[in-house]
């Protein structure tokens, strides 16, 4: 079965046009016009990617995102009206992996979806088992353990962690991480990295306010240390 995408959008015409464009990419598209519908559809049959418009009647996009995040690590793309508002950060905090601003070209959406569906790069990693103090990463199986208990990461969070773990101690700039994980270049939105690092810390650090693994190097980027 092919890749299934759930689009949550209250404007029927946009929904239809987006569905047609995504179907042209060879993906299967399921539509929902309200947040409630979307959650029902997702519970009935989880999709591989979810596209959520933040402005929805009834429960809004943020809530839909949080509800899905509670039960799944599926990649989520948010659609916002503007890039420079609080919406973007709020959407990312709610669990979205990436965002698009309206109006976007369907080609752009396809590119985002493809980037999110890419698997973590495991090819550079010789060891199949990485240990950082109390943290243990098994890239091949997509498992992260802290104190031998499994930590649930989203796909994007996992890829971020593995990317940092590919060269422990090396500083990765935001641009490099944006390119390797999201497929953006120099002009990617650094907030994607910052919010994901924050979310990653909540899960892998004992005290997220005083991280011991995922370190910020001011003005340069991030690194993973033992």
């Amino acid at each position, binding site marked *: 079965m092919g890749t299934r995408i759930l689009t949550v959008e209250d*404007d029927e*015409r*946009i929904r*239809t*046009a*987006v569905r*047609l*464009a995504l179907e*042209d990419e060879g993906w299967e598209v399921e539509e929902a016009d309200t947040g409630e519908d979307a959650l029902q559809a997702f519970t009935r049959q989880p999709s591989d990617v979810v596209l959520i418009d933040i402005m929805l009647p009834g429960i809004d996009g943020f809530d839909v995102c949080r509800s899905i995040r509670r039960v799944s690590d599926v990649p989520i793309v948010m659609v916002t*009206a503007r890039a*420079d*508002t609080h919406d973007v950060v709020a959407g990312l905090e709610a669990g979205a992996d990436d965002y698009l601003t*309206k*109006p*976007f*070209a*369907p*080609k752009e959406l396809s590119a985002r979806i493809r980037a999110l569906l890419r698997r973590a790069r495991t090819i550079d990693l010789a060891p199949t088992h990485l240990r950082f103090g109390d943290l243990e990463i098994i890239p091949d199986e997509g498992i992260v353990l802290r104190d031998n208990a499994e930590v649930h990461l989203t796909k994007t969070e996992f890829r971020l962690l593995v990317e940092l773990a590919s060269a422990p101690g090396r500083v990765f700039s935001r641009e490099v991480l944006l390119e390797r994980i999201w497929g953006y*270049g*120099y*002009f990617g*939105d*650094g*907030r994607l990295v910052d919010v994901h690092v924050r979310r990653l810390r909540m899960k892998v650090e004992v005290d997220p306010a005083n991280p011991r693994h995922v370190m910020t190097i001011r*003005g340069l980027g991030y690194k993973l240390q033992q």
Partner: protein
Amino acid sequence: MTKPITTRTRRRRRARIIAPVRRRFGLRTRLTVTFTLGAAVLSASLAFITFGLTRQNLIDQRQNSAVTRAFANADRLAVELPSATTPTAVSRSLNALSRPNAANAVLSSDGRWYATNGSAFDQQSIPESLTVMVAGGQAARMRTPVNGSTQLIVGVPVPDLDAQYFESVPLADLQHTLNGLAMTLLIASVLTTAAGALIGYWASRRVFAPLLDVGTAAGAIAGGRLDTRLPEGVDPDLDLISRPFNEMAQALEDRIERDARFASEVSHELRSPLMTLAASIEVLENTRDDLPERARTALELLSADIDRLQQLVEDLLEISRFDVGAITLHLEEVLVVELVYQSVSILGGGGVPVIHDVDTEDLIVRVDKRRFGRVIANLLDNADRHAGGATSVTIERTDNRIHISIEDHGNGVPEDERDIVFDRFSRGSEGGNRSNDTGVGLGLALIDEHVRLHGGRVWVEDRRDGDHGARFIVELPLVDPPPPDENGDAEL
């Protein structure tokens, strides 16, 4: 007969409250000068009046006492002279008279003149007119210089005898007192005038301070901080200025906000149909090869104009955000050379050579990368649309600023259009020519707004090599620039 002013004409007429008389001196100077002159005039007239009255008073007093005494002395002489038969006796009587204030007396009796002892005052000192008048039986007085100092001479005929009594009272000590008084009054006037000047200066500053506040507030509003207001209710007089000012500012803010909101709402409303259009066009594009020739041409037209419409809506939204001040910059410190290279290659589609000096390689600017990238991309886009594409992008350092110049080989921008090309929807002399133009006139206006928001400026001039074409220059301040490198002018 006066014609009633209709609303229409009243609105059209420019509100001009004060006739524009050009004054050479400022309000503050004039106020200070007025205060100074006022103080000077007041204190001088006060001094004059005081001096005059005092002088009159003193002299009158001296005069009255002298006259009273002279009469008393004459009366006494009238009693004593008949019994004084010898000149010695007459002299004795004369010397025995009461003469305070260093007065001297002269007596003419039976054609003989007597004077008080040790006195320079004698009949020679008495003016002829006075002698004649007194000899005629008329008491008189006169102020006259005697031996170089002013004296008051009172002449009284001695009753019942053929004798005239003259008494001279010196007025020099009075003059002395009056001189002292004049000096005191002069000093007081000068001090009062100086105080007037100081008060004038202080008052003008006090009065002017709220006006300066008005100026500052107006400047702030002009600079885009539309919510600037003057304090109200502090001073009932100043409220006459601040209340209408604030009402004006509020009206202005409301109006600008309404306009901007309108643009923003229109653009937002346009977004949804545009989204549908863009997605549908893409679906059609996917089946492009199956379409007949005519339909394919129609699709191309549609596609190009939807791009254009989308860009216009985005630009309108962006510019309305500038208008309401809703732009938030995500400032980062980046290497300017990398920023420009990335902007040209990623956003500008590459292909344009970027030239930079070696000494610019470590230079850092503080920008919102994505917004500033759009500035460069829009300038390249502008060159594409109007001048057949940019020929080079140059990065140079000028003191503490960096110049990013984009040159093209088009027709250039005529000198008189160089400012207006950055206006909204300004197309310069190419205005009528839309045939191949997919752009709208907001691009350069947005560039200008963006660059200014970054603390820089943008302008256009002739190509540096003198060839035909334009050179757009974006100037940005550098962050902590190192001292310029003298050897670093080799080009890469």
